């Protein structure tokens, strides 16, 4: 009944007309592009600073690296060599070791801090003084990566705390040169990184646990679920959203692992503990193989983007292309 209001000609008294409430669908709004406001381009001035920032800080450096990786560049002179840098990657044993170490970091960081975080969060949830226990576990996360590395250096050197404790309790044969030999140097650093990273995961899982509706838990309890069954069929599925975030962050963090390794071993000895991030840094900034370093950076970028994309696509199908 929001009919058009026809002027009542000749009427002595103006007729009260119900005004039409203009309703606009988003579709119509889009059509009204010719107006001063609300057109599709109207948002552009507001988005420009963001575009400019992303362009200058992200897009340009990325394409500059792609371009740079096609050159033999020592920082002073450069010559075009096409895909030579990529061909060299295939023959470089240090690059192969770096890829392997990077994969170890991804696997280790996925397994250890995520599992430990989940375990600790579940164990301390509803526990008496659980909050205090969680706080203690979260504390290392407040320390910077560099400081953590210095701390672990005291523990992992041949005369360090770990070996002294082992020798003290009679386990002399367990004492190792933790940082000097591959693969134990990489494994030891993954453990050190786990010590620090677990705290954040505990917080995230604790938040997830608190978000589980009480009714769901009570209903499951009425159905006789408890212990492992409760965890397997109620808690874990309810934590899915948090787990997606935690695992996603773990993947990206492990791929860019740098400060811990740089301080503890500088990627050595003999380049045995380098990851892709370290190899890129060393080639570019220590050896001044800028083009070759760019090629490594691109391989690392490709791995980061591909793994993140595959993971998110797999974990969050709803956010993919909407099927009509």
């Amino acid at each position, binding site marked *: 009944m929001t009919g058009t209001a026809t002027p009542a000609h000749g009427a002595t008294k103006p007729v009260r007309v119900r005004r039409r409430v203009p309703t606009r669908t988003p579709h119509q709004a889009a059509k009204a592009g010719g107006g001063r406001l609300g057109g599709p381009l109207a948002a552009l001035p507001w988005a420009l600073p963001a575009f400019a920032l992303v362009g200058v800080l992200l897009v340009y450096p990325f394409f500059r690296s792609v371009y740079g990786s096609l050159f033999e560049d020592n*920082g002073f002179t450069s010559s075009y060599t096409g895909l030579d840098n990529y061909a060299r990657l295939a023959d470089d044993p240090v690059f192969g070791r770096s890829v392997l170490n990077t994969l170890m970091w991804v696997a280790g960081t996925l397994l250890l801090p995520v599992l430990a975080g989940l375990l600790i969060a579940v164990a301390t949830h509803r526990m008496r003084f659980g909050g205090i226990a969680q706080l203690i576990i979260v504390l290392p996360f407040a320390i910077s990566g560099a400081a953590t590395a210095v701390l672990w250096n005291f523990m992992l050197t041949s*005369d360090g705390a770990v070996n002294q404790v082992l020798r003290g309790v009679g386990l002399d044969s367990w004492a190792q040169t933790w940082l000097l030999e591959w693969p134990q140097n990489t494994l030891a650093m993954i453990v050190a990184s786990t010590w620090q990273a677990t705290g954040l995961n505990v917080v995230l899982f604790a938040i997830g646990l608190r978000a589980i509706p009480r009714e769901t838990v009570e209903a499951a309890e009425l159905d006789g679920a408890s212990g492992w069954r409760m965890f397997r069929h109620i808690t874990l599925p309810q934590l899915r959203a948090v787990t997606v975030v935690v695992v996603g962050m773990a993947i990206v963090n492990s791929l860019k692992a740098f400060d811990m390794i740089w301080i503890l071993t500088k990627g*050595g*000895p*003999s380049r045995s503990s380098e990851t892709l991030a370290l190899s890129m840094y060393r080639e570019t900034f*220590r*050896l001044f193989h800028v083009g070759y370093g760019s090629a490594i950076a691109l391989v690392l970028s490709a791995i980061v983007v591909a793994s993140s994309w595959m993971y998110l696509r797999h974990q969050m199908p709803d956010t993919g292309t909407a099927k009509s």
Partner: protein
Amino acid sequence: MSGSRHASMDRRTLLVAAAAGALATACATAEGLPSGEVAVLGDSTAWEKPMTAAGAAMKSVAALRLVPEVNPSLESFEQIVRSSLRTDKTPDMLKYWSGYRLQDLARTGGIEDLTGQWDRAAARGWVEPSLREAFTYRRRVYGLPMNLAYWVIFYNPQVFREHGIEAPQTWDGFLGACGRLKKAGITPLHGTAADRWPSFIWFQEILSRQDPRFYQDLMNGRERYTDPRAERALRTIASFFDKDWFTPMDLSHTDAAAALVRGTVGMVACGTWLGSTLAAAGGRPGKNLDAFVLPMADPGARPSVVFESSALVATVKGPDRTEALKATGTWLHPTVMKAFSHTLQDGCPNPKVAPANPVIAGLAEKVRGDRLWLLNRFWEQGPPELVEATVDDLAGFLLNPSSYRETLRTMQDRADDAWQVWREAEET
């Protein structure tokens, strides 16, 4: 309303001011320090005080003050130097390395020719003449020596006395001292691959004592790593491992200095610049701290010692170029050198300035008295890219001493490539 208008005007004014500031910063040309002051960029915080002292002394000699600027990260220091040298935002002066690293920098055309300054200083006897080669590129001098550190073996005389050991005068005496320390339950030698670069130390020390001529030729690309003489040096080091004479390979120099003073490690091979670290660990020169030059293994070879000297460099595009050049003219002046080396507690390239530290003074006397052949350190010998890679190879050897043949082959392959690149660049 008016309030909000004011607020918006304030915001606008602020934005305009910020934009103008950003533009001004972006368009600004390099500005140097005020007249009478020149900045020197270095990579070591330990050099900040000595540089300030030298700057104050220079004020009295040349009415110029040197102002130290430190970037303690080796990596970012090198990046700043290399990336800024072609621009007018480059530092006026630098503390750089001698040898091939300096040559590499001179090649860029970004640093000043200081031959005149060197010649004038040499004519007055202000500089050790045999150091010249380490600062020369294509027969021109591109840096002036700052310190003069000898590579020696530090030891604790109290510990030596307790076990009836004397500072060795011969190679056999050195081996004997190691054996006696080992028997006494003291780890005789500090060996390390921690922090990457120290991996070259024992190779450098042993090779230069077994055959200094071969060391010099190998480092300058005239001999091959696969030569039996290089193999002999690595086999000697491997024999030290067999006798269990080395500390764990992840013991840093700082920890080794403390262990030496405490008496749990017998000898530490390092440049005399370790003196300040040893002093900080409680070492008192002459009492519980002394040093000797590792004796020659081949008595027939020319007696030698490895040295290390940083280079004071002036840049071509630095904003205070004229003053920087003036400063280089007086850098080697005894007053400036004395203030610098006495604060640094290291050796001095000006023979007229006696080192303040009695241990280093004794070493300098021996080096000059015995006319030891000064060989530049491994780190400065050879194309930087080659050195950076070969220290990793040597680290691999230290962790697996039986791999010496393989290590030498790998090092030679690298050397072939690196020297080819270096020589090609030389021709262009």
